[in-house]
């Protein structure tokens, strides 16, 4: 779109948003640089780095392999009953707060969990120990197998329907079909999918904190937290932060070289039909794959629900600490949601109003800066500024960090919506002399309310479930719902934790659904 004069307000707003983000991040980096990093790559840090990379690589490998297996089976069954719901279910773990997932994983795979009950029922004496690498992998695959499966299924479903007819007509066998048709589709999507999952696993904080279970299984993020919270070695934390930023920077560079994995499917009028899944063996295989997938990824949800419903709600509701945590979380979530809405609006509007490539690039970078400097990095910097105190400031900081965490996602929804809206209405608004706040109120707000609300709800859900930004500041004086769950889990008050987890999971999932673009089109294609 050609930028026009008279749009200075829009550009100003974007510059303001950008200045805010850059200022916030820069201020966090100042104390980091001033403190200077103490120590270098000693054996322990090398160990942490190695473990971070190893767990992220293994998590990625397992997620991608099993995700592909599931996707092949789901894609082979376009007429599967409930397929739309299966695809929606694949998106569900993403809406679940990491802490709730950790609780669910523990309920299924932990010492007293379902899996160990099954083992002992069959007379197996040894208990399955989930803590450490195993737990991290189980939790990461719980989140990322569905993610990979969803993206790979979309990649396979995006082929024109004639491909499957041609493959059948040409008599491509199982092996040829995989080698020549399915395989290339998966391979094309692989770098984007694997890079995304690696990024998520390399910067995963909550799951490693709760399931790592010791110094042997610590990632950079958790090591930063421990260096500050328990050892109070800021210099060491700063060094770890530098390593972390270099690592995320490298992964982002890798990701930038590949297209973002697309979730939407081709808009083919006719639904997809596959002709290669007719044999009994193939039906049994696909059925088994989908069933195992549903059990693996569904069990933690069921566990959260069952344990939560069995918990002592009256006791919990009588606890003033619960109400304090709830109100703090609500206030944080609403603030983060509002801030995310404002920032993404300002950035999206400025992005389409500027002709300057540098400014546009700056806006893009600002919107996803949080990926380079993860929450733990920002909160470390601000933690050092405030020296652990700061009165009201930590609340503001956490809300801002949560809002920044939501930006890369909300912009992905909002930007295209803003672009097409302005293309449709700009000339008309100008000819009617509608500008500034009037245009915002009459033209823009109604038309863009849906994507704007999505940005709001997405940030709200993210903030409600977040432990990463709160972790350093959390304590007696600053209690959020996730923090309370974490504390209760730590003191083995699991029934409280179960009830809290159920509440948190339900609320976050509900808001996450409101914050996610609807998949009506997928539904139509899947019938």
């Amino acid at each position, binding site marked *: 779109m050609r930028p026009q004069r008279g749009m200075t307000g829009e550009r100003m707003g974007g510059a303001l948003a950008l200045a805010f983000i850059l200022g916030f991040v820069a201020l966090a980096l100042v104390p980091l640089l001033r403190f200077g990093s103490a120590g270098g790559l000693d054996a322990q840090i090398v160990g942490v780095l190695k473990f971070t990379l190893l767990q992220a690589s293994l998590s990625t490998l397992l997620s991608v392999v099993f995700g592909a297996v599931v996707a092949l089976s789901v894609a082979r069954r376009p007429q599967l009953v409930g397929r739309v719901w299966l695809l929606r279910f694949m998106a569900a773990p993403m809406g679940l707060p990491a802490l709730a997932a950790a609780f669910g994983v523990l309920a299924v795979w932990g010492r007293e969990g379902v899996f160990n009950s099954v083992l002992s029922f069959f007379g197996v004496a040894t208990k399955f120990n989930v803590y450490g690498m195993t737990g991290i992998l189980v939790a990461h695959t719980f989140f990322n197998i569905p993610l990979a499966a969803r993206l790979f299924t979309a990649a396979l479903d995006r082929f*024109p329907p004639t*491909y499957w*007819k*041609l493959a059948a007509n*040409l*008599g491509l066998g199982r092996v*040829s079909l995989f080698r020549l048709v399915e395989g*290339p589709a998966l391979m094309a999507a692989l770098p984007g999918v694997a890079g995304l999952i690696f990024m998520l696993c390399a910067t995963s904080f909550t799951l490693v904190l709760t399931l790592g279970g010791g110094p042997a299984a610590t990632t950079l993020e958790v090591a930063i937290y421990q260096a500050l919270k328990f050892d109070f070695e800021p210099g060491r934390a700063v060094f770890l932060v530098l390593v972390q930023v270099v690592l995320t920077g490298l992964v982002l560079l890798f990701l930038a070289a590949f297209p973002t994995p697309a979730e939407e499917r081709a808009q083919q009028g006719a639904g997809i039909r596959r*002709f290669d899944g007719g044999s009994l063996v193939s039906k049994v295989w696909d059925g088994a794959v989908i069933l195992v997938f549903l059990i693996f990824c569904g069990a933690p949800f069921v566990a959260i629900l069952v344990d939560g419903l069995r918990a002592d709600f009256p006791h919990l509701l009588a606890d003033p600490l619960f109400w304090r945590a709830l109100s703090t979380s609500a206030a944080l979530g609403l603030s983060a949601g509002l801030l995310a809405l404002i920032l993404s609006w300002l950035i999206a509007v400025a992005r389409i109003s500027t002709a300057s490539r540098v400014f546009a690039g700056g806006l893009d970078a600002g919107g996803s800066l949080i990926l380079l400097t993860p929450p733990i990095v920002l909160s470390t910097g601000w933690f050092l500024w405030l020296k652990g105190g700061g009165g009201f400031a930590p609340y503001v900081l956490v809300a801002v960090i949560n809002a920044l965490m939501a930006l890369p996602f909300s912009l992905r929804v909002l930007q295209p919506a803003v672009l097409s809206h302005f293309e449709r209405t700009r000339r008309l608004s100008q000819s009617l002399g509608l500008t500034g706040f009037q245009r915002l109120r009459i033209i823009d707000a109604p038309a863009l309310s849906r994507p704007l609300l999505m940005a709001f709800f997405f940030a709200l859900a993210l903030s409600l479930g977040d432990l990463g930004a709160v972790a350093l500041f959390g304590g007696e004086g600053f209690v959020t719902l996730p923090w309370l769950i974490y504390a209760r889990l730590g003191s083995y008050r699991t029934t409280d934790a179960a009830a809290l987890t159920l509440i948190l999971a339900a609320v976050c999932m509900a808001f996450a659904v409101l914050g996610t673009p609807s998949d009506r089109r997928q539904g139509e294609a899947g019938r």
Partner: protein
Amino acid sequence: MMQAIEVSGVGLTLGDHRFGFDLVVPAGAFVAVTGPSGAGKSTLFNILAGFEAPDEGRVLIGGQDMASVPPGKRPVSLVFQDNNLFAHLDIFTNVALGVSPSLRLDTVGRAAVSSALSRVGLSGFEKRMPGTLSGGERQRAAFARALVRKRPIMLLDEPFAALDPELRHQMGDLLGALHRDEGFTVLMITHDRDEARRLADRFILVEAGHVAAQGAIADLPVPQGG
């Protein structure tokens, strides 16, 4: 004369739509399949190609009952309006799939691919990717694959619909020449009655899920109301 295709008493229900087909196609004929949109032309092709199993009736191709013959074993080749080539495979590979679905080609097979490509005017296109070809060139490549498959029947579902009129004419000439030289039986869905009269010697008119008329092209009814 031997019948290439005999469809008798075939019935099929898809959702709310009921289809019933009875038709014969003599070997070596070039049949224009016409009729309004949604009348069931593509469904007829789906039945012939094995993508739909009829609820009742018999489909004979080359005198053989097709009931238990899977799509890949049927003596038919398909060409659609577009997306006939796998976009991630080069032209040679796309055509070679017609020789061997597992791409095990000997020198004879490779020579067959090259000669088919030159037959349709695509010599030297072997290493090109489909995305770099024009729409007409992609359809030529699809014909080349049909040539190397050597299946006696070609089912063409509006193969020229995405092309502009002049190119359409050229491609029609190419198809006519291939039909004369190779002796295929051709069934082509088309909405263009002039094209049908120019290329075909027979017609099948499909209306409301049934064969409304069939015969020599000269008897193709003039549509009421244009």
